[in-house]
């Protein structure tokens, strides 16, 4: 298993596995109920993680060289 695959697993852990632990209306964070904040935070993190994956993935470098 390569590092980028492990990275890609993180959003699944954050958005799926953690849900029973964060299922609460309070506290409000940035004005959002906690559950919604948690999911939104992970959606943003997913974008960041995928950007890191993109940078690390040798497949994108090969095409650059072409």
């Amino acid at each position: 298993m390569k590092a980028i695959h492990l990275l890609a697993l993180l959003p699944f852990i954050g958005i799926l596995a953690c849900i029973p632990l964060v299922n609460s209306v309070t506290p409000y964070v940035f004005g959002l109920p906690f559950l919604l904040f948690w999911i939104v935070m992970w959606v943003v993190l997913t974008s960041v993680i995928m950007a890191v994956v993109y940078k690390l993935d040798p497949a994108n470098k090969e095409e650059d060289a072409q």
Partner: protein
Amino acid sequence: MNAALLIIFGFLAISLYLGIRARKGKDMNLEQWTVGGRGFGTIFVFLLMAGEIYTTFTFLGGSGWAYSKGGPTFYIIAYGALAYVLSYWLLPAIWRYAKEHKLVSQSDFFVSKYNSPYLGILVSLVGVAALIPYLVLQLQGLGIIVSEASYGSISRQAAIWIGTIAVTVYVMVSGIHGSAWTAMLKDIMILFVVVFLGLYLPYHYYGGIQPMFEAVEAAKPGFLALPESGMSPSWFISTVLLTVLGFYMWPHTFGSAYSAENERVFRKNAMIMPLYSLVLLFVFFVGFAAILQVPGLKGADGDLSLLRLSIQTFDPWFVGVIGAAGLLTAIVPGSMILMAAATLLAKNVYKVFAPQASDTQISKLAKYLVPVVALISLYFTFAGGSAIVALLLMGYSLVTQLFPALLFSLMKRNVVTKHGAAAGIVAGVATVAYITLSKTTVGSLFPFLPQAIQDLNVGIVALIVNVVVMMAVSLVMRNRTAVRDKNAHAA
């Protein structure tokens, strides 16, 4: 004629113009028509893929769910983000194979991988059975949006006819090029309208986002989280997972992946798409704002919450802008669905029975099937009835049944045979149909299990049946061929 109506029709005319103009300078063979000659860059592919996500369901249904269901609504942004993670690896693999083999439809992929035109027919029929109700849903949404936003001066029926004719014309003329150009207009509008509404309404009525949520929490404690049973955390997890698997199995989504000019387009989109999907957050805000402002919308009427609150708040011209944005959320996915269904029927069903038909004939037939599919969908839209409602509920689960056979076909050594793939899909689809029609839940199947397991999305059962049957039949058929080979050698 009021200002709202004028604006709605103005935008319809612009999109029709853009849609028809998109053809310019292109020789419309089937490959150009359905997959844009595989020449679309990041932005067009992005818009097409986003176009299929921001449908009338997200516009009306996203706010409607927030209004009537609360916390469970959040699953909509959760599955999107995870589906994009999957897309980083899934779509380039699909695209590469499709380009090598010059595929134009989703069924082509199964035909080519499993070397079986009959599997292609099966996949096409499953696809069309899911697509037509999906199109009906878009048309119903279109009717609601335009008639509400025009203050009832145009009936739902008339709005649906006008919208359908416009979309049929530009799909026949420009194919996917038309969808891409109208998607551009649509996304700009939707972005503007939704972000504005999602911020303005909470501030206008409650003085901010958090005060709005606090007011909702005070009126309905716990509404903004997942309930203990029913749409509980285990429902959330299983539903998100199933939806992620089915996400790219819609024939029109699958097919639009072929339109990319290179595979890096998908990897780039996988970074941007999750952020972009947060636009939905503002749709939810509108639904939450409506809870205390336009109370009393029951059941399916919850989907009206966005429009009712907007009409109560804004001048007609702006309601017209909202209506126009809503109209576009129906016709862009509508155009993709029409094209996908027509291509499947022409290329993967008709051509199997008429192998002598030339590519030009198939391409022509696909275009002429567009109005036919449109008319069938119009019929169901107006006739309604329980059949279409049942199909609607099944749509997502139906296409998800294609995922196992697809996944195995992408592996280096595929253990699944064509018989196995077909049997698995049939078994999965039959299970989905039975479950939906009999209103079975995991809880009703296994009432003795803990609540968390009872709340699992019942689609999981269909997927398990699918995989088990697929594996068993593949094993039997493989052994049989092995024995036959052995006998052939012995003789």
